[in-house]
């Protein structure tokens, strides 16, 4: 990065460290923080939407819809994350490639599955083999977002389902007595009140999501833990900047990052909780009312 860093062997002390901290590899480490933040920023709302849909489906009076909702949560919750992470992206990727293969290369007669190989024509590859590595990385990233959303959506669905059950029954009955339809009861009474019950569970999920990003590397997306391990491990003289095992320092950086994330999340969640508790028929809501009065 700096001209003075051209020959690292001659550097010493602070200069060495400065040059070391600005190598291309270190910059990749810094960028991976952005990758992780982007991932959770995109995944959280999508997972919440999945969860919301799943919870509503699980409560539905239409039997097939209910089965879908229940089946979704039961299946995803029952399968280990790591299995799911290998399965969803690969299945999705192969499914898309298969469809493209069928439409783009109709003249191809060889079977797609040959032994353990999955073979599609070159034009059906997703992304194309010839596209630059950045496209492959973005594609992997998108697959990761989908996989994370499906997994965390299932957990969120169960949390929201529980929260919907926790809304006091008399509230719903009163609404019905006022002549509201089922849909109106859901929209006006159930959903506005359930969030406060869902929040503790959702905040747990959020914290787990923040720390689940090392699974990204299964999909070829390098996250902060991967880089910390890679950069921190002992570097022999084959590297420009040899150093002993520095994983402790790198993991300390991660520790600070995760603690900071936790702190920020706590502050935000406390505010959201306070906002959602206002006027609720819960102990906290009651306490708030009395304090205000």
């Amino acid at each position, binding site marked *: 990065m700096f001209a003075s860093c051209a020959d690292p062997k001659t550097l010493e002390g602070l200069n060495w460290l400065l040059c070391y901290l600005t190598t291309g590899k270190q910059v990749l480490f810094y960028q991976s923080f952005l990758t992780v933040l982007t991932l959770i920023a995109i995944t959280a709302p999508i997972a919440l939407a999945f969860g919301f849909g799943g919870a509503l489906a699980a409560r539905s009076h239409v039997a097939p819809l209910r089965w879908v909702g229940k089946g979704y949560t039961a299946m995803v919750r029952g399968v280990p994350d790591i299995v799911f992470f290998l399965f969803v992206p690969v299945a999705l990727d192969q499914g898309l490639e298969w469809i493209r293969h069928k439409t783009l290369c109709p003249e191809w007669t060889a079977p797609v599955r040959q032994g353990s190989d999955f073979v599609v024509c070159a034009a059906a590859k997703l992304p194309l083999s010839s596209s630059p590595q950045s496209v492959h990385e973005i594609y992997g990233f998108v697959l990761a977002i989908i996989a994370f959303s499906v997994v965390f959506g299932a957990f969120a669905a169960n949390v929201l389902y529980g929260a919907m059950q926790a809304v006091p029954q008399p509230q719903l009955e009163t609404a019905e007595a006022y002549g509201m339809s089922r849909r109106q009861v859901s929209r006006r009474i159930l959903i506005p009140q359930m969030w406060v019950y869902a929040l503790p569970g959702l905040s747990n999920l959020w914290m787990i999501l923040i720390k689940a990003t090392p699974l990204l590397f299964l999909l070829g997306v*390098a996250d902060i833990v991967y880089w910390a391990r890679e950069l921190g491990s002992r570097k022999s003289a*084959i590297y420009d900047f040899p150093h002993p095992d520095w994983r402790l320092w790198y993991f300390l950086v991660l520790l600070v990052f995760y603690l900071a994330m936790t702190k920020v999340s706590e502050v935000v969640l406390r505010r959201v909780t306070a906002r959602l508790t206002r006027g609720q028929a819960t102990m906290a809501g009651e306490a708030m009312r009395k304090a205000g009065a």
Partner: protein
Amino acid sequence: MKKLILMTAVLALSAGVATAQTVRMGTEGAYPPYNFINDKGEVDGYERELGDKMCELAGLTCEWVTTDWDSIIPNLLSGNYDTIIAGMSITPERGEVVDFTQNYIPPAASAYVGLKADANIGGRVSAQVGTIQADYVAQSGATLLEFATLDDTVAAVKNGEADAVFADKDALLPFVAESMGEFVWAGEEVQLGGGVGMALRKTDTELRDKFDAVITTLKADGTINALITKWFGDEAVLF
């Protein structure tokens, strides 16, 4: 005339596409000096240099991809990349799933490293998961401790979790050389596997033949021997 020009243009273009076939090379990036990620953040090492040479000779455009050692074969089979060039020893078990080219590193010794020369190599021995060394340790009767990367296997010896680490001698060499006496060779060297080769999908016979031919050429003109000496030192086994 116009048509002719157009035709040649199309031909030239399609020929261009055909010759510039992109091959994605999958590697681990954590096994110096075979392959590692250098300070610029790029794949480097013996296999990088050899791979680039092979692609140049075969007229292929090569793109380097890194992945976990654990999932390196599944990712090949599902088509995320087209070759594995990651210090992978040729074994019959792997040969059932993937096809290997001829070896580009001759069968080399695996060795034990411990904190002292009489380290108990029948005790707890660490090895990288999914390697021929891990299989060997398991069969030797010692307690096998498996780790995801080579670094972790060596760290296990350092912190006392394992009595010795068992890995490719060439990969352990820098650890021993630079530890200033902390790490020493232990026990006897062992010959394992049929050398290191490039792995491809069984259906990719054309590409495999291409690389096979290129390796033959590079072996014949001494390029491979020169590269082995450059990356593994003067004592390395040559062809």
